[in-house]
């Protein structure tokens, strides 16, 4: 259960001289959940700006809808369950932003509302709130919308910057998968393609990710391990595929790989806590992306790769417990002394 409890180790002693007594350590660093979460929100600003630049009002409307709905849902759930209200901690804002960034620009507002309610309600609060959820709430919300509105969520249009008022256009991944047309690396980098609002501009996402790294909130092994794994498996397919499969750089730049690598793989709550476990997590997830994209029926595999690995986290944590300092090798299968 979620706990937010008064720290009982900290109380004034009644028999003493009125000094405060507490249990060691008496020193703490200045990190806090709101501080971490607000930094992540800051890091998402470039991606949001890119989304608004390319998709104009659509992007603004969807972002606002998702953020506000997420916050309200969190508030209502916490009130209803008589839990301390922590909407100010920034985590619901992140879920709202990420969900919005994963939607196609033409997605209807009611759909965005439903997705946000599901993400926060089912994805997070039912598990007990922040820290207790198994799946990344935004990804779960997106998966729910994929199942409920399979058509709308795969209807894309070209960014407004292209000037033409196209009703719909396939994403680079879909073009690749179904028509064998590859999109140039340049367009993918700057985001001048059709796709989910926040996924198209790789550079904006990268800037935000590097900011998080600079602030010390992510370990590079997570995003780079994930992208590296996608690249390596992508390369193997490319080399062995006789032109059937896209090149590794395309894999990294297209679709949700960048956003996934810097903002979802790195979600603390739903990734392993041990260094070794984090490696396993990102490498297998990277393999899954390439396998789904190249072999599965869907053009995109980032969402499922991460959700699948989220489910495996408790197991991974158990397998990869670090060897305790001074731990002796086991003898005859039995633990010594």
């Amino acid at each position, binding site marked *: 259960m979620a706990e937010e409890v008064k720290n009982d180790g900290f109380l004034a002693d009644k028999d003493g001289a009125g000094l405060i007594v507490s249990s060691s350590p008496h020193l703490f660093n200045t990190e806090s959940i709101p501080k971490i979460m607000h930094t992540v929100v800051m890091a998402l600003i470039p991606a949001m700006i890119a989304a608004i630049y390319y998709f104009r009002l659509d992007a603004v409307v969807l972002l606002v809808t998702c953020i506000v709905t997420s916050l309200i849902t969190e508030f209502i759930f916490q009130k209803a369950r008589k839990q301390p209200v922590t909407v100010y901690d920034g985590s619901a804002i992140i879920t709202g932003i990420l969900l919005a960034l994963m939607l196609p620009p033409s997605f209807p507002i009611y759909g965005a509302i439903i997705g946000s309610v599901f993400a926060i309600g089912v994805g997070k609060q039912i598990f007990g709130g922040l820290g207790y959820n198994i799946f990344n709430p935004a990804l779960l919300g997106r998966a729910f919308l994929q199942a409920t509105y399979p058509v709308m969520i795969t209807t894309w249009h070209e960014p407004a910057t292209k000037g033409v008022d196209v009703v719909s256009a396939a994403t680079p991944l879909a073009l690749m998968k179904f028509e064998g047309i590859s999109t140039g690396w340049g367009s993918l980098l700057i985001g001048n393609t059709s796709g989910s609002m926040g996924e198209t501009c790789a550079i904006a996402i990268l800037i935000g990710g590097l900011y998080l790294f600079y602030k010390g909130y992510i370990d590079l092994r997570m995003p780079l391990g994930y992208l590296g794994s996608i690249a390596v498996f992508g390369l193997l397919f490319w080399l062995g595929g006789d032109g059937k499969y896209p090149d590794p750089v395309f894999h990294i730049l297209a679709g949700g790989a960048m956003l996934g690598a810097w903002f979802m793989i790195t979600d603390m709550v739903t990734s392993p806590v041990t260094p070794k476990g984090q490696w396993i997590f990102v490498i297998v997830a990277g393999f899954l992306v390439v396998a789904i994209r190249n072999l599965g029926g869907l053009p995109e595999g980032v969402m499922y790769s991460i959700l699948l690995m989220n489910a495996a986290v408790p197991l991974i944590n158990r397998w990869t417990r670090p060897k305790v300092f*001074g731990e002796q090798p086991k003898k005859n299968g039995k633990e010594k002394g």
Partner: protein
Amino acid sequence: MKLKTFQRGIHPAYHKELSNNSAVERAAIPKTVVIPLRQHIGAPCEPLVKRSDIVEEGQKIGDVQSFVTAPVHSSVAGKVKSVDMLPFPGGGKVQAVVIETAEDYVPKDWEAEGPIVDVDALTPEEIRYTVRSAGIIGMGGAAFPTSVKISPPKGAVVDTLLINGCECEPYLSSDHRQMVENADKLVLGIKALMQAVGAKNPLIGIEDNKMDAVKAVREAAKRLLPELKIVELETKYPQGAEKMLIKAALDRTVPIGKLPFEVGVVVNNVGTAVSIYEALAFKKPLIERIVTVSGNGIKTPKNLMVRIGTTFEALIEECGGLKTDHKEMVVINGGPMMGITQPRLDVPAVKGTSGITCLTADTVKPADYFGCIRCASCVDACPMRLMPLKLGDMGRLSITEEFNNFNGMSCMECGCCSFVCPSKRPLVQWIRLAKIKLRDEERAKHA
């Protein structure tokens, strides 16, 4: 050059600048001293004096027949006022001798005639005997009787003597001043310790935030003990934890539940080495020590040479007093990471009191805590490579069996995990609960 260090750990703000350049001053001789009969880990002493007895400075006033113990001595000359259960800075109450200082008391100058014993000629047994009878214990805070620490078990081969000059706790600077001001005595103490344990390879580990200490010790070693190796270490907490220091300086790993003897090492603290030399050369028992009084709650931080048994109150007064009201103050015996908060100030400074840290409530007050966001900060910080997030929950929920399977008993309560947790979860507090519960269960099983 890459500095030696251990894996993981933290970099708290050290605030050493408050006191590390202040030369040691003698604290005023107190009107009364309170000398607890158990200041060490091990068997408590029995009082050798009673009410109204007249005692000399340095007179033994408590001892007991036991291997793991250390006698206590009067730190002043005067009259015994009472022998009573009194509050102890390490927690709880301990039997203590209260001595009223004589009106005409003049402190004895133990070193007036220079060394009265040829330390080089002493046998290991003689050294151990003197160390025990001088009441010397680990002065870095561990308070383990030194005579035991320098008695290797049968069959153990000690090749290395490692001196701990890390002083990694924030605020404290008593060892630092010891190295800067008493480098000669320190090096001679190291020499005597080598004789006692038969170690050929002497090392001293010093963090790189104390370069003046490195220089002073190097200087003294050149003249007195050229083979002493000075190892500069990264400034990182808990560099001075025995197992971490052995790992950093020697790259040897002490197995779980084992002593440094296992890897051929004996570790002693800087202050302890100085006291050992004083005991051997001048027959001076452990009756005074350097105490750092520091923190943002004290008016003038100082390093004081303090008679064992002087109350915290007197020492805080000597440093200009506390800045704010008691209600907003935390007074800690030791440093802020592992020290113990004091509910009252009439407790005495004891042999293990390396510092008195006074912090204002706003610097220490932990916020209310939240759910674990599995950020792994605690895992990345734990020098024992444990899983503090799991151990904490097991403690909170009293799942002692799992706690044991996860090696919870090897937690050294260094506090790194609680320090880094963004959810401010009191992990160490919970771990402590589990340890106590587990110990009780074991005891019940054997009873």
